[in-house]
């Protein structure tokens, strides 16, 4: 890939909240179009790209699922020109006061995005017992600086509000911004597709940017059923070690992707990719995910009669804040590991997927 950083900065600058992924989907489609043979849409908004394998038909297929939807806010009401909002996906309201946002209006007054900020009303405007601690989402307001009349003309209940923190390049080849969960993994999958251009793979490869992961894995549920792959690989961000996050659930930043093991993941797939990473000397960390991985794997694993599933994680600091932080190197390594794994899938691979 010529410049994963530029692609990723472009991609996280697009809104694409859960259920409304089109702005992100369009950028991904443009990037994938030369890398796949067919492009299609899932019924719930996922983007499907198919690369034909070189094996004899009917070929086995591997689906790589990376969700493209972003968390954000939705307008629930308008009071004196201020917007009341609820969350789309899981947001700790403590990161919201003073956060730059973009309102995406659908009213009669035109649909150009409106910048704004999340306002924390001053103490005297709040109930007495809500003045000192964190202010709840039900009390926070979005202020666009427009006059109440202008807001009424443009904004409607149900309109989306996305984070507007611009991408920030930090030292150590790291990038900070919103929606790196999970556009970072979309970038890794894109790198994989690019590397597959110069490799031979006998399996069909379904590159899928899933929708609505943050609100219940909806895109993955529909797409896995529709595509019905032989195996599925889910790539999602995982927690990186950092301030306030140091226990076993978090992984070092910049030391490679995680390979997850646990109930969602097929033990043979896990073992195979781990061996491959060792063989290729691609650094990785093992991620223990005892019962629930919190990724699209929860959907792919139980689709149809069950799909053997593998999960790779890209360590990310400050997940679900406007300043998520990722190491570009981890994305590149995940992309390469995916491509090598896929290229190594032989016609007899499924015969080895056996339980001991």
């Amino acid at each position, binding site marked *: 890939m010529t410049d994963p950083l530029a692609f990723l900065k472009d991609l996280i600058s697009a809104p694409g909240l859960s259920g409304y992924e089109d702005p992100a989907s369009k950028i991904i489609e443009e990037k994938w179009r030369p890398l796949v043979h067919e492009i299609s849409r899932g019924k719930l908004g996922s983007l499907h790209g198919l690369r034909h394998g070189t094996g004899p038909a009917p070929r086995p297929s591997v689906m790589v699922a990376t969700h493209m939807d972003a968390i954000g806010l939705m307008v629930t009401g308008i009071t004196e020109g201020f917007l009341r909002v609820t969350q789309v996906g899981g947001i700790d309201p403590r990161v919201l*006061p003073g956060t730059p946002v973009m309102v995406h209006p659908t009213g009669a007054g035109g649909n150009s995005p409106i910048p704004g900020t999340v306002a924390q009303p001053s103490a005297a405007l709040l109930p007495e017992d809500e003045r000192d601690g964190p202010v709840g989402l039900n*009390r926070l307001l979005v202020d666009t600086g427009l006059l109440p009349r202008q807001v009424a003309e443009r904004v409607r209940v149900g309109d989306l509000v996305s984070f507007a923190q611009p991408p920030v390049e930090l030292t150590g080849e790291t990038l900070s911004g919103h929606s790196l969960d999970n556009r970072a993994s979309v970038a890794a999958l894109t790198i994989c597709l690019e590397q597959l251009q110069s490799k031979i793979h006998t399996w069909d490869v379904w590159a899928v940017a899933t929708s609505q992961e943050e609100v219940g894995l909806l895109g993955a549920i529909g797409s896995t059923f529709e595509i019905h792959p032989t195996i599925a690989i889910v790539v999602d961000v995982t927690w990186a070690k950092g301030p306030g996050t140091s226990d076993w659930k978090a992984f070092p930043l910049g030391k490679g992707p995680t390979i997850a093991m646990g109930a969602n993941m097929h033990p043979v797939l896990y073992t195979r990719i781990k061996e491959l990473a060792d063989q290729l000397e691609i650094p990785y960390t093992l991620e223990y995910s005892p019962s629930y991985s919190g990724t699209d794997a929860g959907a792919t694993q139980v689709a149809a009669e069950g799909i053997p599933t593998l999960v790779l994680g890209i360590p990310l600091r400050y*997940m679900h804040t406007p300043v998520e932080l990722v190491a570009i190197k981890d994305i590149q390594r995940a992309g390469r590991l995916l491509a090598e794994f896929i290229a190594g899938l032989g016609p007899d691979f499924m015969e080895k997927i056996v339980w001991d």
Partner: protein
Amino acid sequence: MPTIGTQQIKLLERLCNAVAVSGDEGEVRRIVLDEIKGHAGEIRVDALGNVLAIKQGSGRKRLRVMLSAHMDEVGFMLVTDEGEGLFRFESIGGIDVRQLPGKAVLIGKEHVPGVIGARPIHLTSAEERKQKVSLEAMRIDTGPGNSKVKPGDRATFATRFQRNGPSLMAKALDDRLGVVTLIELVKHAPPEIDLLAAFTVQEEIGTRGAKVAAYAFHPDLGIAVDATPAYDLPMWDGAENSSYNTRVGLGPAIYVADNLTLSDPRLVRWLTETGDALKIPYQFRQPGGGGTDAGAIHRAQAGVPSVSVSVPHRYSHTAISIARLEDWKNSVALLQSALARLTPELLAGERA
């Protein structure tokens, strides 16, 4: 007449995007010096870093009028290097810690970027989310690897200036609005007065710059040109908001009383009569807390009659504050018109 047009808004943009935390105002000071060069008879930088400019009038009996606008903004200082690009930091000026998680910052003269993160929601308990994230628990993260910053460096919010409809949105509108206003007044000072312009330092941590500037100027009267919070959002229960301080859109806020100053009633009258006569909208700031450079000026020497005029703005001391362009324009018009009408008789009159 000074006006607020494209050029002045561009200047405000440059000033708002600058990093000039209390005690480290250099970046704004350089812009101020560059802007007022050649527009005042005497321009100097004093011992604390204030820019002091004197523009003499030409009338026969002229009052010596000090106007002050503070160059500094609230922000942070890095205090401990914990390695791997992570820094403990301390607040400078009044910042609500609830405004910090999830914000991007710029550090030092080179504007090195960093972020203040937060624990992922997935790894926090409902109980933990009921508590504020303490300053002690937060870090400025500049990314792993060799850091270009060090303890002692100042930082502030990274937000970039933007316009939206009738509004200006930026960090540090408090008091870069006042700085541009004062630059314009220096450039277009009415000849009826001697204008003593103080672009002050360290206002946010105790009006220190204004204290020594007022001593040095020894003016006849003082006016702080600042930006004041508008708490004009709706009440949570729909009741009338009776503690708004000021409201955006209603014009410049004239101070009658704050926590530091009982404004000289003659000056308040002079400003309101000017507004009434010229149909320039104004509002009274609700008497109460807070304070401006006027608090230091009116205690200087044997005492200096003082008042403050502020542009109302929302979300002061956060990553994004919002002001109305019209309020700013009217603040400049009110000050300029009032200064042009100023005669020594004002201070010879009864106080009340």
